[in-house]
């Protein structure tokens, strides 16, 4: 194989060495993975959600395995904006890989506060807005399921984010994901990432209680991959292709073949979530596998592959 094969991509205003990210919430703040992989080999890195105030997160159990998947209800446990800046940012600023901070909150002001505070931090390439959170101000329905709220939150954060790249992460739990995608893009999203997890439940039939302390959780893993691929392709065709907006595709990716499937469907880059738990070095293997695939297919530039579904 051509070891020097170039699989670098244009990702909004960034040039990335390769199209593989690790997904928010599955790779900590990078330092935890250091024993298992060289984070700088990634195309991009996305932190666990950061909120304005620290969050303890939910009671346990917070995870449960399902067929080819898992539910999680971590509850956005994180150390909060200030501690993030004090304790995590110094290490992050030493990374050469572009780092995106995943931002979550309960009100639009929460999101804006995080983005504003970090907008001037050199160490950060951009933000990923986790809009699957419940909007407490509006009765707790997820921001991401209502196009009007998506518009509002995206424009507000866009303003706050300065020249940072703004990625909006879509929830798959909607009737028509293109409607949400369009709202985000028209309100200023530079990149769309999809999908987040599916709301789901596992019941312990012995105790007749939900297994998760939070009752419900988000389904991720290979189980959801075919739905995610469909949604990426739909958003690509209906929203992002004509506008030249990149998609970060994710949901159940575990092998290079999975990653290539998302890229053919329309993703410019992909992110690895649940698979990191099984194989912490999975992303690096996938980068190698994508190169091999391109080489075998005599694809000179990975751009030829993006959205190349016949």
């Amino acid at each position, binding site marked *: 194989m051509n070891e020097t094969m170039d699989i670098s991509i244009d990702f909004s205003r960034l040039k990335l060495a390769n199209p593989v990210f690790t997904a928010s919430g*599955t790779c900590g703040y990078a330092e935890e993975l250091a024993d*298992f992989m060289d984070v700088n080999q990634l195309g991009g890195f996305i932190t666990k959600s950061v909120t304005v105030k620290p969050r303890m997160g939910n*009671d*346990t159990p917070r995870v449960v395995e399902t*067929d080819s998947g898992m539910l999680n209800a971590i509850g956005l446990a994180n150390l909060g904006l200030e501690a993030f800046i004090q304790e995590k940012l110094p290490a992050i600023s030493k990374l050469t890989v572009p780092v995106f901070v995943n931002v979550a909150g309960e009100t639009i002001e929460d999101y804006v506060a995080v983005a504003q505070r970090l907008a001037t931090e050199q160490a950060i390439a951009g933000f990923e807005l986790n809009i699957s959170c419940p909007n407490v101000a509006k009765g707790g329905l997820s921001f991401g399921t209502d196009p009007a709220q998506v518009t509002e939150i995206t424009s507000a954060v866009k303003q706050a984010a300065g020249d940072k790249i703004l990625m909006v992460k879509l929830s798959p739990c909607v009737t028509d994901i293109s409607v949400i995608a369009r709202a985000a893009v028209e309100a200023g999203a530079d990149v769309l990432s999809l999908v987040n997890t599916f709301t789901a439940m596992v019941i312990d039939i012995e105790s007749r209680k939900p297994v998760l302390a939070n009752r419900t959780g988000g389904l991720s893993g290979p189980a959801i991959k075919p739905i995610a691929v469909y949604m990426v392709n739909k958003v690509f065709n209906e929203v992002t292709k004509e506008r030249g907006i990149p998609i970060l595709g994710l949901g159940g990716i575990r092998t290079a073949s999975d990653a290539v499937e998302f890229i053919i469907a329309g993703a410019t880059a992909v992110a690895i979530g649940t698979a990191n*738990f099984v194989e912490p*070095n999975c992303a690096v293997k996938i980068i190698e596998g994508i190169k091999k695939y391109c080489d075998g297919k005599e694809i000179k530039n990975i751009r030829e592959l993006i959205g190349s579904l016949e």
Partner: protein
Amino acid sequence: MTEETFKSNRGVFDAVVFANKQIRQRFYRLGLEFSGDGAAAFAQTRPGQFAEIDLSDVKLPPKEEIAEDLQDSAERKVLLRRPFSFCDVISQRGKTRVEILYCALGPATLRMTTLSAGNSVSVIGPLGNGFQMPADKKTALLVSGGMGAGPLIHLAKAITTEYPQVEVTAFAGAKTKTELPFEKPLDEISRQLGFALHEFAMYAVESQLATDDGSIGYKGFVTDCFSQWLGQQRSLSANDTIIYSCGPEAMLARIAKIAEDKKIDCQVSMERMMACGIGVCQSCAIKCRVEGSDEMVYKLCCKDGPVFDSREVVF
């Protein structure tokens, strides 16, 4: 507060099965051998540390050999790795052999039972922090419930080898006789001598047994057995004693209470459902007190634990 371990050594390694023996109805003992970097990494394993094992591609036992109450859950394919601690670790001539005492109770552990010598499995570890050794203590009391015995056997070995001056006594409990995860038959004479369990007697550690139904040993909870024994030890100095415990959370809570009442140091090994085992997913949170404040924080069982000071944990 727990012992610092050699984190930089941990990684993803292949191990080769050298033994997998059924010791009781649902209990097995698996032996894994590491070579090369894996051997070096696992040679450092401290009692109470654990590993994450990938059992997803191991085959199920034939249906007719699966207990009826496990047949449905056996249908679930395994995606995530599973955490296991060790009951023994031996490093020799560049190889490290670890042994795991386990119970077949779900899709992954059922698969584990079909591993046979020569099979290879992927293992991440060693992970977490082990038990703090009783450097300044005279007495170490080991209390286990069910499968919790594994890491305490390992601990008994480590203490008796590294701190021969420390007197070790072990207590093991289970619902009933057949749920005690010990291999050797318990002979009456040894039992009267205070050596109920071969696994501890090997290290000259006295041991006592308790079963909820009294089918063997003390009749009742192991915590009651332990508490009663403790009450009888007139000469025991709380300051010079340390309790180590591993088992179901309700039992650990009880032990923590006993330790608190008696003002004895106590370390408990906790369990949580774990997705990653390496501190990235936050699934294994343990609610802990912040020393000297009313505040609570979540620590991570996989990273900050699995062994915690019992005063720290909010049960």
